[in-house]
């Protein structure tokens, strides 16, 4: 059994799986159910001056008959009184002392507001604080959430104010609705943040109802942009985590958030530099019990890799994530069709013909059957055929390593040295 315990900026947790701040962490009842199910920690639904929420609030993106490939919401922070939340936090911490409870906070960008709320939630016994500079909807119109999170100076200043009062670790949760997330990540680090978490949700309009022409979701026929999350955002979140992880001037731990649904996603985020992961949509889709396979699967994976601790995964792939200019221009990959596995759907052919490099051709095999093969000399190794292929093992991408590696950056240096 691998050791799944983590230490995240001083916050201990028996496994890296935390519930992200959101509907599943709205009440003590829910968080305690989650801890019973096995979650290592929970970030409480964002506290602040209570708001009034609208109905309806959520919508799902279905794809190819699968539900919730993506998810969006226009729900704001907690709509319950602060005292009630603090009482339930206290009770939950008393009942589950070994689980991490993080308070997510969002207040106006004023020093005294941050001091006040930090003191009150720490008094309730939380293990850490997460500053919500991320929600793109609703609260942003009041100068909070992503409205703060998009301005590096505001991120730095508010982090600093929170740190002035905080005794527990401060995590700054970043918005992806910004051109370069490392700018705000750097600002958080400058403000004294103990850690960062990302990503919050992405600006989105889920859809338009083709019968009523209403937005999806809608409130009495009117809609507003919401925050997008779920499996579809995972690649965006993963790249943002990786970009921050490889910056040496953002030397603080990262909590990965965005489309994490199972242990495989979690392991990828950890390899790309996250030392804890947060989950929300998957729990909303399937309930808290999904954590069982997350823990079990990650455990088996870490064991299979011969590692003692899950922390040994953290950041292993970061050095492999570079700028384009550092990739080897001489390296070749070509597609190969394995006739034993091909089911003859011809999808690779039409994809290559219409959208790539016209190098997958029909031929007649020895048994007189029509089959497909790759004209290697014209294959650019784009992967498209293997992506569209529905038959496992039918198309393999074969490496043709170059003898001499040459990146774009190296090439440009050579040219400037000898060419010009």
């Amino acid at each position, binding site marked *: 059994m691998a050791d799944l315990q983590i230490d995240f900026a001083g916050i201990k947790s028996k496994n890296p799986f935390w519930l992200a701040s959101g509907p599943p962490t709205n009440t003590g009842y829910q968080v305690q159910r989650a801890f019973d199910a096995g979650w290592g920690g929970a970030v409480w639904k964002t506290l602040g001056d209570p708001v009034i929420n609208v109905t309806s609030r959520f919508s799902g993106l279905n794809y190819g*008959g699968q539900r919730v490939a993506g998810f969006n919401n226009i729900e704001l922070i907690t709509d319950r009184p602060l005292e009630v939340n603090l009482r339930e936090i206290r009770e939950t911490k008393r009942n589950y002392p070994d689980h991490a409870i993080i308070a997510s906070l969002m207040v106006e960008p004023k020093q005294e507001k941050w001091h006040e709320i930090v003191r009150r939630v720490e008094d309730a016994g939380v293990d850490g604080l997460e500053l919500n500079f991320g929600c793109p909807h609703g609260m942003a119109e009041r100068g909070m959430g992503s409205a703060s999170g998009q301005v590096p100076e505001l991120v730095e200043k508010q982090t600093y104010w929170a740190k002035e009062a905080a005794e527990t670790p401060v995590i700054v949760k970043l918005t992806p609705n910004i051109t370069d997330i490392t700018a705000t990540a750097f600002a958080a680090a400058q403000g004294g943040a103990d850690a960062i978490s990302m990503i919050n949700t992405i600006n989105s309009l889920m859809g338009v109802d083709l019968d009523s022409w209403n937005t999806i979701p809608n409130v009495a026929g009117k809609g507003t942009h919401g925050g997008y999350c779920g499996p579809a955002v995972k690649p965006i979140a993963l790249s943002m985590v990786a970009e921050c992880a490889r910056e040496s001037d953002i030397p603080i731990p990262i909590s990965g958030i965005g489309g994490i649904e199972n242990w495989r996603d979690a392991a990828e985020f950890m390899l790309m530099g996250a030392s804890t992961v947060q989950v929300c949509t998957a729990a909303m889709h399937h309930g808290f019990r999904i954590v069982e396979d997350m823990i079990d699967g990650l455990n088996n994976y870490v064991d299979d890799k011969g590692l003692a601790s899950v922390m040994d995964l953290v950041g292993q792939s970061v050095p492999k994530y570079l700028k384009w200019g550092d990739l080897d221009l001489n390296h070749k990959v070509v597609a190969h069709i394995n006739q034993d596995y091909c*089911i*003859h759907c*011809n999808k690779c052919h039409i994809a290559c013909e219409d959208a790539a490099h016209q190098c997958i051709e029909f031929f007649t095999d020895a048994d007189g059957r029509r089959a497909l093969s790759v004209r290697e000399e014209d294959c650019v190794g784009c992967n498209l055929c293997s992506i569209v292929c*529905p038959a496992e093992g039918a198309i393999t991408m074969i490496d043709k390593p170059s003898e001499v590696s040459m990146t774009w950056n190296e090439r440009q240096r050579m040219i400037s040295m000898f060419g010009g």
Partner: protein
Amino acid sequence: MDSPDASVLWKIFDEVEPDLKPKEVMEEANRCLFCFDAPCTKACPTNIDVPLFIKKITTGNMKGSARVIMDANPMGATCARVCPTEELCEGACVLNDASLPIMIGDLQRHTTNWAMKNNPQLFEAGKPNGKKIAIIGGGPAGLSSARELARFGYQVTIYEKHEKAGGLNTYGIVPFRLPQRVALWEVEQIEQLGVSIRTNCEVGKDVSVQSIMNESDAVILAIGMANVPSLGIPGEDLDGVYDAIRLIEKVKDGKPTRQFIGKKAVVVGAGNTAIDAATCLKRLGAARVHIVYRRSEAEMTAYPFEFRFAKEDGIEFCWQTQPKRIVSDGDGHVAKLECVQMKLGDEDASGRHRPIKIENSDFIMDADVIVKAIGQNRYKSLIDAFGLVHSHGVVTVNPETFQTSNPKVFAAGDVIFGNGKGEAMVVAAAEQGKRTARAIHEQMFSKI
């Protein structure tokens, strides 16, 4: 099925195969890979663009889906029910080896059911071109050619001797596999294009061959096949001997009879019509139904799914058994069937093993009802009346153009279906009708 009253009887003739549920439809449609140059489409005699109609189901474009199906196959709703899909589209599905083939027939039924319920106008008649076409026979081949010709702008008249058009779809395929309303909906689609269907009108009797020939620019002979031939054994005239086609016709027309309740029935033959007759008899209350066939299971022409269906219905099969004599009860009724056991000899012209009698292997089966289902006769006299070259009632045509020995007369469907070529398919008749229409159109307008 001891004493079915009228309502129960009707219930048991309801379509057996349930519709897919909405979620099943979406799951199955989304499973389709949308193959390029798809083998299912190539395996369909009418070349329905299967991936395209399925893709349209997934996007909720049901009208478009129905149009793809019905454009390629004017009998698309019928074929969704009666096609041997495991030998055609589904048999060709690339997922056969990888997982399970897409349920193409069921998805086609879903789309055509939608079309029958919502009845959108899928096609329009072409601008009138002034040419007149007469079609003899309102079955799948005749209707299919009529539909295409109407879209090209021809003035089309179908002559149909029955009360309703649709041919074997309307009268010859058991209702629990193909409800009559499905066939009649397809007829309606064709009438909506301005095709005139003269029912209860037998050519050669109610209207002369000569007048049709004189009044038309071209004639399509799509008369199908006739009654079941005689067995050629003693006792065939006894009360209790039936023609399978007539038996099914009655049931199909909503006239179930009580006369078979508790009876012991023997169906002679093992094609799809034999199976239809046998399963009909079972539903009509027959106590036991045997099928006797002179060859073995391997030579049977019924589709595998028909055979499975019959076995599920409790039909008992006597292979390599040939009727020799129908024995009377002394009062003019069938009482027994004397049979002889057969063995299989060398292959005959149809490629099947020739059955040979085994000496001294005679035996007697109890039987109150004998149903003949050993193929169908040909309308030779009508073919002769048109003066067409034919071989034992199978009209000779140019396989490309469906033109007969008379350049003005074309033929399609069962009337050109050769003996010993397995089972004639609705889908093949529909395709021939389509191609005949195109050949006529090409010929008429290449001259201008």
